[in-house]
């Protein structure tokens, strides 16, 4: 019964979200890296920092933000992510609005992940083999986080080749696409207050205090 009526919905939502945190953990970079090699290299690099950096372990937000900004962020195509999340309204937005949206969304993601970062020390990541041909410009890199006592959580990265580098434009955690999840949120704000309303909502969110870390 407990699991029956109570637990299941909570758990169902928890698995993907919890894992969402680590996930951004995977997109990193040398220009020549194939997308799967890139994901693996950056993930391992970040995991190594999470496991060994005393400041990160102590929950030092500035240091964590620094790791995210320097190690993870360069491997994401935030503009494409934002355009996908905003949906139709993106085309009606001015270049200035598009830039504001992208900056604010990037900040939101970065803050979100720095808050959840420290909880993922003992993760083990399995990288699934990827088969794409050399000319491909789109790929989905699949990884899996193995946890004792729980079903493994799949984390997939939707990636596209931008110039000579692969960049991630969506992260799908346990079936929950980050971009899709924000599409409803953003659509709601745009409907209520237009593109400027969405910019305002994001800015306000980013200006608020981060919630206290969970033990």
């Amino acid at each position, binding site marked *: 019964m407990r699991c029956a009526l109570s637990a299941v919905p909570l758990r*169902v939502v928890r698995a993907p979200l919890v894992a969402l945190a680590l996930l951004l953990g995977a997109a990193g970079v040398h220009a020549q890296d194939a997308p799967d090699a890139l994901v693996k290299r950056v993930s391992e690099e970040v995991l190594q920092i999470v496991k060994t950096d005393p400041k990160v372990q102590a929950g030092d937000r500035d240091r964590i933000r620094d790791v995210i900004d320097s190690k993870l962020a360069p491997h994401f195509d935030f503009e494409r992510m934002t355009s996908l999340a905003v949906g139709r309204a993106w085309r009606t937005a001015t270049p200035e609005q598009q830039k504001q949206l992208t900056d604010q969304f990037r900040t939101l993601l970065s803050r979100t992940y720095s808050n959840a970062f420290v909880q993922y020390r003992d993760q083990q990541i399995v990288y699934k083999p990827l088969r794409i041909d050399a000319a491909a410009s789109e790929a989905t890199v699949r990884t899996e986080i193995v946890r004792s006592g729980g079903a493994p959580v799949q984390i997939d990265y939707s990636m596209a080749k931008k110039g000579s580098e692969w960049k991630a434009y969506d992260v799908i955690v346990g079936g929950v696409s980050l971009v899709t999840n924000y599409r409803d949120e953003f659509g709601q704000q745009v409907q209520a207050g237009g593109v400027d309303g969405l910019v305002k909502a994001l800015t306000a969110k980013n200006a608020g205090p981060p919630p206290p870390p969970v033990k």
Partner: protein
Amino acid sequence: MTRIPLRVATLAAGVLLSGCAAVASKDDPFEPFNRAMYDVHQVVDGKVVKPIAQAYVDYTPKIIQRGVMNFFGNFDDVVSVFNDFLQGKLDKAGNDMGRVMINSFFGIGGLIDIASDAGIEKGNEDFGQTFGFWGIPQGPYVFVPVLGPTTVRDGTGLVVRAYASPLSYVITDVPVRNIFYAVGFVDARAQALQAESFVDQAALDRYTFIRRAYLQRREYLVRDGQPAPEKEEP
């Protein structure tokens, strides 16, 4: 005399419907009602359930929390076995049955998840997924105070599960069983704490964020992780 209640009902329905028109989310036709339930949930959960779960996390030894989680997880595996069979997934049924046997006998009645450590992956099938497997759509989204997000289909699955509760066959003494249910509930709520802090930080509107995450997750589980349909570029 009967006119008045009828009018009230009509008015209420009108309010509900006009609310729906404004939001226009096809997955959530009862959004205004669900949001009201969500507000109720926030109050009850914030004042009662969450503090208990937080205290459980803060003051119970980690090894006990782990044991509790594994113990109830073992019953989840039993439910998975049932549903593997109902969906004709015999290999998964074998896998999950193996987990239950190993953990029940060698893992001290499920307190230790030896099977996972041995590399036998935990399955995750429930009645809602079985309905989905056989083509039944999720139906309207429903937010139930204290219990959380669900849909008509998945909620029905939860009711089926409540009646089929494997725990009730193992523990027949009702007061004792109720204590187990209570502990299991606190365990489940405790496990959601981290995800909750993530949602607090990530969401502009928690209600909307949780709804989409829940619906995406359930669809994915029904598909057993097969890729979702393509997303459209703007």
